[in-house]
């Protein structure tokens, strides 16, 4: 019983890490996805510097997800990263190029240099967003996990239709989230331009999300099994939808801070929908349900889970505390100085 409590605690920490990653690196990726729509060196520099001081810290949440899996559910960590071998390599390439492009893009005055790295930044961001979405899509579809707890997957199966749909939806989500973030950081014409992008971005995302929901209910009924059993859970996607509408509402009212918070809340409910649909399964086997890796059959033993909980209990509040300080230091509109990217 005690073991199960800690298994749930570590799972919650992993989900929290996923949530923080999506709302934080989500806007970094969103800015990247939108980057080529900014025209001219000044606008593009403003985009880069909107995330400049904070993107690196945001990306650490991805490492945390990996770390919590490695420590808490080592079988899942190994199975996931080796089963998704080629997609992981693609994701890594995207992450490397995204990091490097931000760092080097403005370091040389040549227009060719800057254009090339602008494209790299945008393409890498789209790739990362799509890969994250496709991974989640594959987890919904289920994977051919065998009795040894491993699976192999062809790249075509990785990019199947449902997975691609989720990948594209993720790109749309981050684009919307990034646009809302940029509204807080920009002013004058650029901000006006962005205001005009947010509405179509929300509509695009909502449309895709609708298609995604229909597809999920039609082809992967396990995802809504819990919700159908406990009808109370229907409120979660409804609240998510309300939060999304509120984003558009707040943008129209020019309350951009609230719009961003609504966007974060919408993402929270999206994560919640995924959790409700999959709990306690981490990797669902399409070969046989008894081969599925769950939080109850794939965890480390209780002592490690307790250590992890202690580390998180000390570390996460610390991170949130000084993270808040750092964000507050850089609040307000982007100002290009000699230190900027």
């Amino acid at each position, binding site marked *: 019983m005690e073991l199960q409590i800690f298994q749930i605690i570590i799972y919650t920490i992993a989900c929290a890490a996923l949530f923080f990653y999506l709302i934080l690196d989500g806007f970094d990726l969103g800015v990247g996805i939108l980057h080529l729509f900014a025209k*001219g*060196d*000044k606008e593009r520099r403003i985009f880069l510097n909107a995330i400049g001081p*904070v993107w*690196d*810290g945001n*990306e*650490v949440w*991805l*490492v*945390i997800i*990996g*770390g*919590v*899996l*490695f*420590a808490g*559910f*080592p*079988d899942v*960590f*190994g*199975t*996931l*990263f*080796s089963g*998704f071998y*080629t997609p*992981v*390599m693609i994701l*890594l*390439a995207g*992450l*490397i190029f995204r*990091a*490097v492009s931000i*760092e*080097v893009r403005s*370091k*040389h*005055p040549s*227009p060719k240099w*800057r254009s090339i790295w602008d494209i790299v930044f945008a393409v890498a961001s789209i790739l990362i967003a799509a890969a994250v979405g496709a991974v989640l899509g594959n987890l919904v579809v289920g994977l051919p996990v065998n009795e040894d707890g*491993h*699976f192999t997957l062809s790249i075509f199966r990785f990019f199947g239709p449902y997975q691609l749909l989720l990948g594209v939806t993720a790109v749309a989500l981050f684009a919307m989230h990034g646009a809302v973030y940029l509204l807080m950081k920009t002013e004058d014409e650029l901000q006006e331009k962005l205001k005009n992008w947010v509405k179509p971005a929300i509509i695009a995302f909502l449309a895709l999300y609708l298609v995604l929901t229909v597809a999920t209910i039609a082809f992967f009924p396990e995802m809504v099994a819990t919700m159908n059993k406990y009808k109370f859970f229907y409120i979660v996607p409804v609240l998510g939808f309300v939060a999304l509408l509120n984003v558009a509402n707040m943008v129209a009212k020019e309350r951009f801070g609230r719009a961003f918070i609504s966007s974060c809340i919408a993402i929270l409910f999206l994560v919640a929908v995924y959790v409700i649909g999959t709990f306690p399964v981490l990797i669902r086997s399409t070969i046989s349900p008894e081969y599925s890796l769950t939080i109850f059959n794939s965890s*480390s*033993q209780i*002592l*490690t889970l307790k*250590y*992890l909980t202690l*580390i998180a209990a000390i*570390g996460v509040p*610390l*991170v949130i505390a000084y*993270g808040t300080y750092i964000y507050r*230091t*850089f609040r307000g509109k982007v100002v290009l100085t*000699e*230190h900027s990217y």
Partner: protein
Amino acid sequence: MDPLFLSRVQFALTSAFHYIYPPLSIGLGLFLVIIEGMYLKTGDEGYLKLTKFWAKIFGLTFALGVATGLVQVFGFGSNWANYSRYVGDVFGSALGAEGVFAFFLEAGFLGVVLFGWDRVSKESHYLSTILVCLGAHFSAIWIVVANSWMQTPTGYKIIGEGAQARAVVTNFLEMALNPSSVDRLTHVILGCWITGALLVVSVSAYHILKKKHVDLAKRGLKIGLYGALAVLVLQLYSADVTARGVAKHQPAKLAAMEGVFKTNPEGEGTALTAIGYVDTKAEKVVGWKLPGLLSMLIYRNDKTPVPGLDQVPRDEWPNVQVVFQSYHLMIAAWGLMFVIAAVGAYKLKRKTIEKAPFVLWALILSVFLPHVANFTGWMTAEVGRQPWVVYKLLKTADGVSPNITGGQVAGSITMFVVIYTMLFAVFIFLLNNKIQLGPTDDDASVYRDPYLGKK
């Protein structure tokens, strides 16, 4: 196209490339704390210029450390899934601590260090620099603790059988403070300080040679050179402690490092081979031998024989030639660094450095030596531990992911070689740009609209 062999190659390549950057970040981090501290203490704007210059270089090395570091942690899962399954319960929490306590700290406050100059007070900025330096050092701690557990495992028990067997932690402190952690962490941190110091020395010597920013360059050179010399001396002591630790806990590795094939009879000390060639088939080393010296170094008497590889089953021998030569190359690199640093420090003290171009060139080129030492040191440690990935518990061959193909790994190796070559070119290009510009006020890479006049 064996996935095991290719995975080993990939891990070696990605680790070697990654390890260029964290030592620079750790060493430069400390250097920044020193020079920004001098600025706050003396109010001398020269130190501020120096701080801003080196902070930009730090930002570059840090970014590349992060980019290549992601590859490392994902690589555990992708290519070494069985190893991850085996060790996750033991030091997974150590790596979790690394992420939570180290990475957030350094990545977070780096934003303030690089971009917060006009937004926070001088004191707050300095605190941020200190926290970045601390974060960088913390990140070394946990990964070295994890690797040390792989070398000298304690604080664990094995559960399960056969292919399902795994190690689980029984005591976090015992696991973290295993017999080699402290020695190896000291050795690694000192190595990082030398790496950072010699980059400072190299760039400063270059500026002095080109007669640019000479006053500021001399300040950097002074701190870097005297610092490097002091740490090189400390490293000698750390090396002794660490090697004796290896002799005690990993005798097979020590035997390979020193090329000791035969255990001498009781009362007969073992010779040290200062330089040589290993003939594994004939089970001997051909080279310049100093009688009794190895026993002296390890046991402090020249009579106790050192256990040789004859005490180790043949199929548990590491690659003796590789381990022996790496180890000796590492020491040679140390020797060369020490000589160059000593001569340079002497010239600096006598104020004759500006008229000594040969010495300046040696100082400029010395930047490569810590990287040689770091690389060969890790080769010694990791190849010397083979065939084990966890010493005496799990063979490397049993740790590889069972569900990957040689083709996949060949593809990812190719990808990494291409990307890392490009990355390295970009790194050198930008580093050189910054060095050529030097610590001045007018930053030429600052806002120049390249589209001005175009569409």
